[in-house]
């Protein structure tokens, strides 16, 4: 049991943000799509899923909502399906039945899934408009979508603050919470900083 501890500690120390790997994937109409085309206008949530994954299916309901709600700020959801030849033909009927508003790409050999270091499905990464992976989530449990929405609002805070037509109270609340958290964090940082010069005793 004790041999587990150093491994866990080392991996914590090494954790850091990285860039989204380059890649081309096909959409359900068989068109080749560059994954970087989706971050041209703003941040993207990339989600990996397959048909038999029930948590994935539940999470997609919220991803669809957020894709519609935040699209005017340049945000997009890109959903990457990893079903292989065994069940691939059932993906399009399923997606069409749900009328999802986001783009669904296909990764039947799981090569892009492997490239981003996904451990299991559902796996979601939030990528900012410069291509940096800022947040990763493995797995989904009901309730996790609330945390995800806060993270999306934090990523879009500049665009949302500039929106003079904003009337959606749920977005206003999340934005106020984000601004408050940011202010508290800044205050904490100031208090932690040592004084530049010791006060004079004169």
């Amino acid at each position, binding site marked *: *049991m004790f041999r*587990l501890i150093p*491994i*866990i500690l080392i*991996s*914590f120390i*090494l*954790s*850091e943000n*990285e*860039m989204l*790997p380059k890649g*081309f994937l096909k959409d359900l109409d*068989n068109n*080749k799509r560059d994954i970087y085309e989706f971050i041209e206008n703003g941040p993207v949530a990339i989600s990996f899923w397959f*048909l*038999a*994954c*029930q948590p994935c299916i*539940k999470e997609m*309901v919220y991803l669809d909502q957020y894709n519609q709600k935040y699209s005017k700020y340049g945000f997009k959801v890109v959903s990457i399906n990893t079903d*292989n*030849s*065994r*069940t*691939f*033909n*059932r993906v*399009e*009927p*399923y997606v*069409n*039945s*749900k*009328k999802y508003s986001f783009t669904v790409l296909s990764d*039947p*050999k*799981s*090569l892009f899934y*492997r*490239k*981003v*270091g*996904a*451990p*299991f499905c559902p*796996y979601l990464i939030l990528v900012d408009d410069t291509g940096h992976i800022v*947040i*990763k*989530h*493995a*797995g989904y*449990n*009901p*309730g*996790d979508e*609330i*945390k995800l929405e806060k993270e999306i609002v934090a990523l879009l805070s500049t665009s949302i603050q500039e929106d003079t037509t904003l009337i959606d109270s749920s977005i206003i609340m999340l934005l106020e919470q984000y601004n408050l958290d940011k202010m508290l964090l800044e205050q904490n940082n100031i208090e932690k900083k040592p004084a530049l010069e010791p006060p004079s005793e004169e």
Partner: protein
Amino acid sequence: MKNNINYYYLFFLIFSFIYPSSQAILSYELKFSEGKGDSRNYFENLLDINYFFNSGLYLFAQIEYSSPPLLGSETKALNDITNIFYLQHSSSKYDLTLGNLYLLYGRGLSLHTYQDQDIDYDNSLKGIDFNYHINDNIDLFLSLGTNEVKSRTNPADIEPSISIDNDIISIGSTFNYNNINFHYLSMIYDQSYAYDDINNLKSLSNILGDYLTTLSGVISEDNPGYDMTNIEHNLGMEFVLGPIDFYVEKSLVFYDKLLAERVDGYKNYFSTYMNIFDFNIIYEYKDYSTPYLYNIFSTPPIAFREASSILSSRNLHTIDFSNEYGYHLEINRSFDNSLNFLASYAFALHHNEDQNDPNVFDFSISLDDFLELSDYFPYKQYYVECSNWNKNGKFYYRIGYDYFYEITNLKTIKAQTVPMQYVYSFKTGNSLTFYLELQEKIVASTNTEHKYFYFSPSYNHFGSWLLTFFADIEKESDKWYALDITKNFKNSSQISLFYGSQKGGLVCANGSCVMQPDFEDGFKVTYRTNF
């Protein structure tokens, strides 16, 4: 030779870390268990390395140190620890891959290579794959490789019992224009079966196993084994006619019956999809007939619905990709009030060598007729499900009914399962989930009736930690209880501690199955992170 290759991989891996790169993505998984009785204790470490060079070159390696793993052989020595290694270079004109090749053409009737860690299976080729993009519509591809595919003839085996050497060359083209997609693939592969492999294949419960059993007198240790050269031609097409999508694929296979004459076989697959009044309907038909061939590279569509419930998945249909025909019909519809409806029906039979194939489309088959088809190992399953989130998104339910009936040469199983799931989400981001499943199963071969009950409540605390209890009970028999706590850390790192007992079972993927042993009264640790 294999050892030298692995040393070369490791040398290259170390060199890669010295050579300047734009970035590396690593993910690590640790699994550890210590249980009592017949529990299989394991200590597995899996490190996936993605390395992106400034030159555009991409490297992937998977390193495994397991002593022992849950399934398979120990990997402790330096020359054993590299599971996967490949280098890839892509440009607008071509894709080039060197190392382990994961290939898929069409729906995999002829060629689909993949790794599945859960069943300790990897049929990837070690070689070179070149894909040349002539223009936006036409690609040409060529793959050359070799492999030694390890597999199990008995799902209960911890270690693989057969190991078949293959050398393969495949060449083909894909074409797409508007709504038409087309592919053609030709492949030639040499297979080498050692005496032990042929002897172990006798235990297969299919036509190949029966045939080899009749040759028991011929198969002896003095026999040096058997080599064969197989040829496959594979053609697939996808097109749209008005509101209906079609997909058709066919493979012609020319191969040797082990220790005997040359024979031919085929694999056919057809699917169609349409949307009528918001009902999404998909129909799939499969007919796979290469009964004397031990399939290595073919992983075609299964044409049945994979169960997502714990108890239903214990009666999973074990598809025989060498010999099976049948169909699958699935209908799903989402209503405006977010109510989802799903219905699925699958029926399949095996070809029987000496008799004519029964009509698989005879919908009037009664239970007695079904029993009369026992020589064809019939399988049928239907499933209906309703699920719904209420309007404010707080309450969710999913209720299904699964009917499964299968006759194999080992047993006859009839099972009815009712899987249910209820979720209550609090406004602040925490939630309660309840899984409840009931099953009644009749095993005709032993004339026994079993009743199972599965209950698993879990509490999600703001995405920070998750507490789950498991109760898996067979009436008047086994009872399995366990508790699991999972803590999520920043950026998808996760540690899970499990204490208790867990019922084992058959885990199947792509026609291969392994029996995961029961776990008795112990603890398990799983840790995952990427960095």
